[in-house]
């Protein structure tokens, strides 16, 4: 339960309403944002100190309605049922007022204190929609604040209004009533629901959800302790369906739809026929049935070339002082223990800074840009047919593209997929997508030594592997997936501020979590080498490393560490071979470089990915993922060894 000294505010809104951007503007950038449905697939908590008190704020997954259709929406509803908040902030995309009001009406039914943030009001005006805010406020009976989250407009007003609602102002709405017979039936059901029951904080709302929402949090419990109530629900549902000759859930949805339409017509004026904006022009090319495809290829080629063009010279510059420092340390006559420690430390810090970051940073930037632009759902539209070949559909595409950044959020984002089978298959395929860590390896080895075209080819090759593995897996998972229904949000030129904040947020998490592991790994390897323990590990792995892959035995140990962080394999490769980065091609042949890179990037999902598959999907999926990756990596790397 919400405690009075730390009130709970929950953000609820439809996907792409700018909910997370607004949440971030208040909490200081902790939630992921993107311009496609379902970025916030799990809720983000934060605590903020405003107006002399600590307030807990929660950003729930975007949900079109309170009738959950996918795991992300279920999470949103369950949270509202389990812990009734002190205040709900309903974020609305003002340019989609009519549709968004349907969710607002559902929230009114909860009769919890509610504030509406009428977001993206600038976009609405651009589209020719004029909204009478005061009138909307009067009709809904709750405060309505106009905001433009990505520019920070209206945030102050929203905060001070929320504080008012928590302290003195009465922001508790009255549920709207419906047309005669429907209202009567709902009322009679509501009266037979026990009032003191803990998951029921409003009997009418619970009655509505029992009729229309299928399996909800409360449903399960009520079914167990009050089986006779569930019979009553069936009776009422049948009566409603007889009345209107429609499924019960559609009757209620239609009631809301009409109310929302009426509201919309009385508060909004629409002037159509506005000039076509830049966004629409770009969009008509991006979504063009023919031009869209070269566009897609161009965008992704540009994506990787830009990362390389920025990363490559940056790496060259940053490497110099580090190789100088390493050389200096090795000349010192320090005790061997200290020397090993310092060597590992410098390799770890320098590797993270000079080899990983130059590629990681531009990738983060471009990824954030594509996400906020809304390109991911457009790629989903274009690639849907292709995805059918591997037994999935376009809705998995945004998850795959996110995988190029990091596999972990990519696997979380599969929550927007309705079918468990699609989630399972997509999550098994995501670890084959080269994430930023692997991109760093590919660019630092393949592109740096063999040239950017080799790297492009390598990337393409990895995508073919994803397709082949998907094809293979879908042979075993035959069940047809449900058809595609995916909203294509309007194209938005991203605000630099949001993109910057996002990059900084992700960079911070790299410095906090990934870099320490890289440094600890480097030091660990130094000590293992000092104790000569690496020889045994390398010896045990030699049948694979030397026998199958034809690589120097010394590289065995780098694979063990690659499970922790993929970049470690690259940095340790230098350490294990005892060479400097620039002299890599003198020790390894071109074929060996390619084989090593292919094996490292495919052989196993990294530890975080493994954990997230275990948690999100199942233990079986996580173990299967390891098995699958090892077999595919061995097979592919062996083939490459024969070809190149």
């Amino acid at each position, binding site marked *: 339960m919400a405690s009075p000294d730390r009130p709970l505010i929950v953000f609820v809104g439809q996907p792409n309403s700018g909910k997370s951007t607004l949440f971030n503007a208040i909490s200081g950038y902790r939630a992921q944002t993107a311009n496609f449905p379902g970025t916030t697939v799990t809720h983000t908590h934060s605590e903020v100190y405003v107006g002399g008190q600590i307030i807990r704020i929660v950003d729930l997954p975007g949900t079109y309605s309170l009738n959950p*259709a996918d795991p992300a929406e279920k999470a949103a509803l369950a949270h509202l049922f389990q812990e009734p908040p002190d205040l709900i902030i309903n974020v609305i995309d003002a340019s989609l007022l009519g549709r968004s009001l*349907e969710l607002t009406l559902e929230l009114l039914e909860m009769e919890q204190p509610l504030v509406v943030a009428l977001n993206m009001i600038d976009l609405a005006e651009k589209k020719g929609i004029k909204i009478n805010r005061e009138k909307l406020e009067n009709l809904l009976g709750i405060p309505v604040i106009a905001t433009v989250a990505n520019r920070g407009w209206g945030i102050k007003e929203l905060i001070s209004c929320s504080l008012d609602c928590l302290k003195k102002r009465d922001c508790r709405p009255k549920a709207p009533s419906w047309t005669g017979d429907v209202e009567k039936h709902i009322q009679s059901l509501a009266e037979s629901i026990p009032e003191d029951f803990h998951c029921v904080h409003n009997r009418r709302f619970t009655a509505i959800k029992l009729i229309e929402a299928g399996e909800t949090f409360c449903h399960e419990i009520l079914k167990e302790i009050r089986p006779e109530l569930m019979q009553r629900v069936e009776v009422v549902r049948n009566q409603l369906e007889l009345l209107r000759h429609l499924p019960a859930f559609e009757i209620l949805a239609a009631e809301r739809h009409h109310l929302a339409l009426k509201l919309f017509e009385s508060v909004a004026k629409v002037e159509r026929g506005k000039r076509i904006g830049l966004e629409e022009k770009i969009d008509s090319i991006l979504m063009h049935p023919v031009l869209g495809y070269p566009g897609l290829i161009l965008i992704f080629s540009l994506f990787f070339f830009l990362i390389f063009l920025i990363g490559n010279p940056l790496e060259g510059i940053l490497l110099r002082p580090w190789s100088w420092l390493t050389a200096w340390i090795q000349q010192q006559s320090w005790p061997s223990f200290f020397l090993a420690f310092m060597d590992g430390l410098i390799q770890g810090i320098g590797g993270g800074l000079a080899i990983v970051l130059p590629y990681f940073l531009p990738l983060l930037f471009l990824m954030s840009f594509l996400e906020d632009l809304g390109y991911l759902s457009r790629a989903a539209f274009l690639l849907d*047919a292709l995805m059918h070949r591997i037994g999935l559909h376009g809705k998995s595409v945004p998850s795959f593209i996110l995988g190029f950044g990091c596999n972990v959020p990519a696997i979380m984002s599969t929550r927007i997929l309705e079918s468990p089978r699609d989630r399972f298959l997509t999550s098994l395929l995501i670890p084959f997508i080269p994430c930023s860590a692997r991109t760093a390896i590919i660019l630092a080895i393949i592109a740096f030594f063999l040239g950017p075209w080799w790297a492009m080819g390598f990337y393409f090759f990895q995508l073919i592997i994803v397709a082949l593995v998907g094809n293979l897996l879908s042979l075993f998972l035959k069940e047809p997936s*449900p058809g595609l*229904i995916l909203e294509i949000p309007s194209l938005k030129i991203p605000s630099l501020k949001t993109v910057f904040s996002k990059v900084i947020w992700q960079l911070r998490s790299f410095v906090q979590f990934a870099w320490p592991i890289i440094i600890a790994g480097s030091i660990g390897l130094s000590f293992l080498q000092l104790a000569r323990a690496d020889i045994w590990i390398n010896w045990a792995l030699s049948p694979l490393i030397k026998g199958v892959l034809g690589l120097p035995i010394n590289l065995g140990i780098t694979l063990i560490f690659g499970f922790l962080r993929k970049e470690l394999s690259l940095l340790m490769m230098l350490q294990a071979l005892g060479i400097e980065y620039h002299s890599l091609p003198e020790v390894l042949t071109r074929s060996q470089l390619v084989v090593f890179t292919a094996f490292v990037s495919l052989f196993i999902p990294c530890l975080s990915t493994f954990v997230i598959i275990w948690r999100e999907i199942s233990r079986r999926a996580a173990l299967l993922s390891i098995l699958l990756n090892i077999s595919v990596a061995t097979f592919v790397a062996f083939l490459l060894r024969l070809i190149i």
Partner: protein
Amino acid sequence: MAGQLIRLIEAPQGRPLRIVNIIGGHGIRRRLRALGFHPGDLIERNSDALFGGPILVKNLSTEVSVAVGRGIAQKIMVEVVDGQS
């Protein structure tokens, strides 16, 4: 052609269409409703992805665009609306 009941997949591009009925299961009807596509709404078929890919449909009153697979488009019954309405 006006007034005749056809499947969305057979409907012409770029002309206003009225959704008459959605003949799919509960899941599809729920989803489409939630995205703002109701029987009675005016929509427009905007673009078809190549290789049997999805169809882009725009709701003319809310301007929401949704990509629907061809299987779903089989189940959306529409009629062509003539002239300006």
